[in-house]
């Protein structure tokens, strides 16, 4: 929790309140999202806690990438995907890990992660300052930290040897 707070406070906040339907302001918001993500990844690398990569389609409405967790020196990697909702940034993107769909009860349909009771109030309080980086730091990060070790222990998630490594 302390780590989450520290990581969160060093992610740049965003200025522009615009969703993908706002033709005029969305490009500016998208720029800020990228700036914030770049800084967040750099922070993570500096803190030796690099844990995800993300990219988007041209319009910035669909995002995909990878996140990973280390357990007993083994790297467990998962695909991330989510859409920017029509009502963004008033509502946060719903982050999904499709390959874990149906493997844990802490997920909604389509592999969307089940967020803690703290997430939505905190997001609501910080509209429009929070962006994708904050959703990752506050939502996906803590979810992975709690759920993945448990899924590994239960044998639901197994280590996959990578061909290219």
């Amino acid at each position: 929790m302390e780590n989450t707070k520290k990581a969160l406070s060093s992610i740049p906040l965003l200025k522009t309140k615009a969703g993908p339907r706002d033709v005029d302001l969305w490009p500016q918001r998208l720029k800020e999202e990228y700036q914030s993500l770049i800084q967040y990844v750099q922070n993570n690398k500096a803190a030796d806690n690099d844990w995800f990569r993300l990219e988007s389609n041209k319009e910035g409405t669909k995002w995909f990438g990878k996140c990973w967790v280390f357990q007993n020196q083994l790297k467990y990697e998962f695909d991330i995907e989510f859409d920017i909702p029509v009502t963004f940034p008033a509502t946060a993107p719903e982050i999904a890990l499709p390959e874990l769909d149906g493997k844990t009860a802490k997920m909604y349909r389509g592999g969307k992660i089940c967020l803690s009771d703290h997430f939505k109030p905190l997001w609501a309080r910080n509209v429009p300052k929070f962006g994708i980086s904050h959703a990752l730091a506050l939502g996906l990060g803590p979810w992975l930290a709690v759920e993945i070790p448990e899924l590994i222990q239960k044998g639901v998630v197994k280590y996959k040897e990578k061909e290219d490594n």
Partner: protein
Amino acid sequence: MSLEDVENIKKRIENFKKTLMELTEAPGAQVTAEHKIREMSAEVVDSNPYSRLMALQRMGIVKNYEDIRKYTVVVVGVGGVGSVTAEMLTRCGIGKLVLFDYDKVELANMNRLFYQPSQAGLSKVTAASMTLSKINPDVKIETYNTNITLTTHFEEFLTVLKTGGINGDRVDLVLSCVDNYEARMTINTACNELGLNWFESGVSENAVCGHIQYIVPGESACFACAPPLVVASDIDEKTLKKDGVCAASLPTTMGVVAGLLVQNALKKLLGFGTVSWYLGYNALTDFFPSMMIKPNPNCSDNFCLKQQSEFKNMVKEEPEFTNVDLIEDIVTHESNEWGITLAEDQPTASNNTSELVESIKTVNVNQNNSIKSDEEYLSLNDGLEFAYPSADQTAPNEENLVKETELNVDDLREQLSLL
């Protein structure tokens, strides 16, 4: 076998299953189809499915029940609340139902009403439309297996709301039966843009509270005017064990909420009784808190502000516009041409009228008073609370914000990919 093959086989199985169900049940469907009735008959015979509904008209509760055939209602989300809502409207003989959902029927849904285990794997809208058209073939049913919160489907959703009515006109009412904040905000955005009336409904994740909320853009608070209003269950969140699950559900709470929702939708469409603005339900204490929430002059939705100013102008031009009809309606309904009333009916009826007049006075007073502070705006009746805090308006320190940059989106995209 690749993952793709498995997916394709799954899809084919679902299609086979659907075809099989349609084939095996087709004879029944044809029999009922022969009984298709275009006009509602008030005749009291065993074979008339509408006789008990038309009796509402004979008894003077509803002025013109057949009007229900003219109306189109959109139900967004046909899960625990939405499916029951759709069934009630179907049995009431609604003109047209438009269903939105992108979920599939699962065995985990069987603690709720409506769906059957044999429908597992089918899309909810397909399963629902098959059952509903068998219950009442008079109802026109249109389905959309789409997620409205995605930008790619939102325009389609707007178009359906604008042109999905029986004669290609706008729909009459939208009922939100979704289970998440994102979808509710999406419906709110659409209805604010179109000035369309809608009902929000919800059941708490602990399954023991629920609510319905009637939203008239510009006249009442929209869903973005204030944080979502929920019933206080008095359960300490810390003692609530949520390990290993996202949400609980009970068919009872969902049935009650669907009943309250459709009851108020019928009152609105057919013009009888009074429609509740916000009505909560606490199953633990059988408490039904209610209140009216005024629109927020600082709402973050620009279309809400536009609707608010249009509503103000309308009230200025016709000051009594919202209220007089209501009072007169109640009074005429109350007067009884024979002068006979059942003793036990009398006090309730007159109470209702005085309460109504009282509430109308309050509404008028509120409209004349501008809201002075956020605290005043956010004061709530007993038993109700906001699910989330309001957005913090204080400006953050400049150093915590993203910096101005000369780079364009493509430069930044590349920079991120090279990290």
